[in-house]
Every structure is written in structure tokens, then in C-alpha cells.
């Protein structure tokens, strides 16, 4: 059986359907169609007891429109204000895009498993992200920046389609200053772009690494993650030390609705973060 992480201590302990009102404090435009919302719970008691782990997600709810599962992308050490980076792409996220500072959003969460930051302490870490896949990894980077001495070398490999599609560019130097190697790449360069052009897996192939002491966290388009994983396994990193965050249609967030299944896993309650070893048999089956 897959291990189910202990029930995430959600804001509403008794009722997984329970929603709590939050206020948008700030809307920060990131890249075209993508913004980050900073949220704060209305109720100070809720604010005081809300905690999350890097990799977890919230269900953001707009009454009459619906819910969207959005990963937390803020610092887990500052759970009193929550950042959610959202691309306006579906019903809910498009409606969310019309909300501004001061508006209300309802929240339930946090849900799901988290990146194994405890288990990989003392090891080298390669973080391979693509596109908006950097959002659920940003809490990891904040954590690492704050606890840098507890880990070996830390490298962020991050790719996007174009230079202007790279997220959180203003923070790279902050992370570098904290001792994180930040390498970026784009699929298509422009004249101003002097950096790498190529896909994230190709950067993994170039990276010097010590397989026995390296852990890998990856999040991005599923096909990108698959090739990142092939590349690190070819370098003899153990599949037990490779973690990925999967996306499926998450609807209830607590394993009741059945939408987000992949083989034996409910992505919402067993995941979204899995070790590659757990999910290996199911990732390459077409339409599964």
C-alpha cells in the first residue's frame, strides 16, 4: 500500500469541506497571465493556527464559481501570509484574475504531502523546475535559504519557454547570495538573452553531481519531469531520492471524490509530492 501522510492539520480540523474567509492583501503581477496573490485569513484565530509544509496546496474558493487547487509558494516560516501564484487558465483562475487587493477569497487547506526536507538534510540537492512548476518549489528555496548550513550543495535548474516567462526573477540573486546555485534556461532565446537555451533535462546532464549524496526535487510539465528523472537516474542517483510533484484533477482535496487518481495513488492525499520509486510503474502508461 502507498503510505498516506498523516492528515494535514487543516485549518478546519473537523470538516474537510469547511472554508475560511481570507482577504487579498496584494496582487503581484509576475509574467503575462500569471499573478501572485498574497492572502491573509480574516479570523485571527485561524491565522494563528494555520501552518503548511513546502509542496502543499490550498483550495481557493470563489462562491458561485468554484474551487481551484493552488500550491503554496510562500515561506513556510511565515504562515500568517500566504502566497499563491496562479495562471489564469480555467473558470476559477480567470475569475480570480479579476479580484484585487481587499477582495475576499475563501480557503480550505493546507492539503497534500510535502517535499522531504527533513530526510534529505545533509545531502546535496538538485531542484529542477519548469514553468509554473517553480511555484510549489519556492517554499523549499525559502527554507533552504534560511537553513543553508544544514544541507550540502544546492542547485536550482529552472527553465521556461521564453526569458519573459521566467518566474520570480528578482529573487534569484537573493537565493544566490544565500548559497544556492541558480541556473536558468529557456526554450527560445531572444537578442537580449545571454543565458542558456535548451531544456531543463539537458542542464541536468551537464551538472556535476555526486550521485550517492544527491537528492532531486522536480516539478513542472510531466514530460519534462520524466526526462529530468531519466537524466538523473542515468547519473546513478537512486530513484528513492528523486521526488516529483504531480498534477491531476484535484476536486475535493481529501481523497473522497476520486478525480485525481493515478494508479493506486490519490494525488491529493498521497501526493502531490511522491518519490519516483513510488510512482514509477504508472508514469509511462498512456492515458492512465
Amino acid at each position, binding site marked *: 500500500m502507498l503510505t498516506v501522510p498523516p492528515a494535514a492539520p487543516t485549518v478546519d480540523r473537523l470538516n474537510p469541506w469547511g472554508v475560511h474567509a481570507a482577504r487579498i492583501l496584494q496582487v503581484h503581477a509576475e509574467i503575462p497571465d500569471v499573478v501572485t496573490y498574497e492572502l491573509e485569513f480574516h479570523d485571527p484565530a485561524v491565522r494563528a493556527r494555520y501552518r503548511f509544509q513546502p509542496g502543499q496546496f490550498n483550495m481557493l474558493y470563489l462562491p458561485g464559481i468554484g474551487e481551484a487547487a493552488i500550491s503554496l509558494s510562500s515561506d513556510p516560516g511565515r504562515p500568517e501570509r500566504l502566497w499563491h501564484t496562479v495562471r489564469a487558465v480555467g473558470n476559477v483562475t480567470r475569475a480570480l484574475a479579476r479580484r484585487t487587493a481587499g477582495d475576499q477569497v475563501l480557503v480550505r487547506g493546507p492539503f497534500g504531502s510535502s517535499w522531504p526536507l527533513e530526510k534529505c538534510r545533509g545531502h546535496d540537492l538538485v531542484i529542477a523546475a519548469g514553468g*509554473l*512548476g517553480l511555484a510549489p518549489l519556492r517554499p523549499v528555496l525559502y527554507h533552504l535559504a534560511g537553513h543553508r548550513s544544514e544541507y550540502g550543495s544546492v542547485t536550482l535548474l529552472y527553465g521556461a519557454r521564453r526569458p519573459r*516567462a521566467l518566474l520570480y526573477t528578482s529573487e534569484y540573486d537573493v537565493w544566490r547570495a544565500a548559497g544556492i546555485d541558480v541556473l536558468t534556461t529557456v526554450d527560445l532565446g531572444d537578442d537580449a538573452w545571454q543565458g542558456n537555451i535548451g531544456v531543463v533535462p539537458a542542464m541536468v546532464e551537464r551538472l556535476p553531481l555526486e550521485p550517492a549524496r544527491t537528492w532531486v526535487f522536480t516539478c513542472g510539465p510531466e514530460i519534462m519531469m520524466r526526462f529530468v528523472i531519466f537524466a538523473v537516474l542515468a547519473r546513478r542517483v537512486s530513484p528513492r531520492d528523486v521526488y516529483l510533484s504531480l498534477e491531476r484533477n484535484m476536486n475535493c482535496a481529501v481523497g473522497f471524490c476520486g478525480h485525481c487518481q493515478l494508479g493506486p495513488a490519490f494525488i491529493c492525499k498521497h501526493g502531490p509530492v511522491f518519490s519516483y520509486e513510488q510512482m514509477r510503474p504508472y508514469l509511462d502508461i498512456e492515458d492512465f
Partner: protein
Amino acid sequence: MSQDVATALRSLRLLERFPEELLAPLAAIASVESFPAGAVLFRQGDAARTSYLVIEGTVALEVCAPGVGCKRILTVTSGELLGWSPVLEQEHLTATARALTPTRAVAMDGRQVLALCEHNPRFGYEFMRRTALALARRLNATRLQLLDVYGPEMASTPDERAANVPTASLPSPPGA
């Protein structure tokens, strides 16, 4: 001079575990060249003469077409093969190589490399095996780029379907 070249060759990731006795003949026909940032190493359509192994620096490959302009499609960096046409008997280079940073590279004359392969099949096997690997990586990367995977398919925004239309809770009896 050829000693420097041999040292440079030994440091290249592409030539990892390349048999030592086969390095010397390669070093003998190769030279180390330096390019300032912005320099063009070769142009699309040029006669295919020289292949490079990048020692350090980043080189962008650009493909130009009328009406489309020039697109940077890939960067080649230290340890990697740049310009495969000369060692694969192609007449013309298929892309323009522009140094993005100051770059040092081992330059090899394609015909001389091919003659070496012809003359010493073991060298030919070891060299071509690595060339094939470099091209396989390029091919895989190109496929990924073709898929244009960074669409709206984003890991931080799951959810979002049209509301499911529930079917009636009691199905009509079949063949009743």
C-alpha cells in the same frame, strides 16, 4: 602545443573515459582557439570544415530563415560538441554559432578526423560513439522543445473542469 591540446581534451565531459592512447592522434590534428564574446565561430551555410569541442564558454546556435528572422535554438557549453556536420561528411553547416561569453574551444578539421577514423577503427568507434551520444541528447532536447510543454499545463494550477454533468442516479432499466 599538442600537449596543451591533450590536456584540454582530457578535461572534456564528452571525452570522459576516452582511451588515453587514442587522445594523442586526436591532439595532433587539433588546436585550441579562443573567441571573444559576440564572435561568430561559423555561419549557417558555410562549408563544413571545422568541428569544435567547447572547453569553456557558452555558444548560441542560431537558425535563420527569410520572413522568420534568426532564432536562437540552443546553447552549447563546456565539454560539448559544437558543429557536427564536418565530422559527419555534410557539405554545409546548418546553424550559426555565436559566442555569448568569451569562449575557448578545441578545433578539429573534419576531414582529418574522418581520415583518423578510417585509419584506426578503434578510434573511429570511440569518437563516433560520443558523437552519436551528443546528437542523441540534442535530438531528445529538440523533441521536448517541439512539444512546447510550458503551455497552460502548469503544476501549480490543477483543478478546473467544466462542471460534471451527473447522470441520473437511477439508470433506465435495460431491455425492460
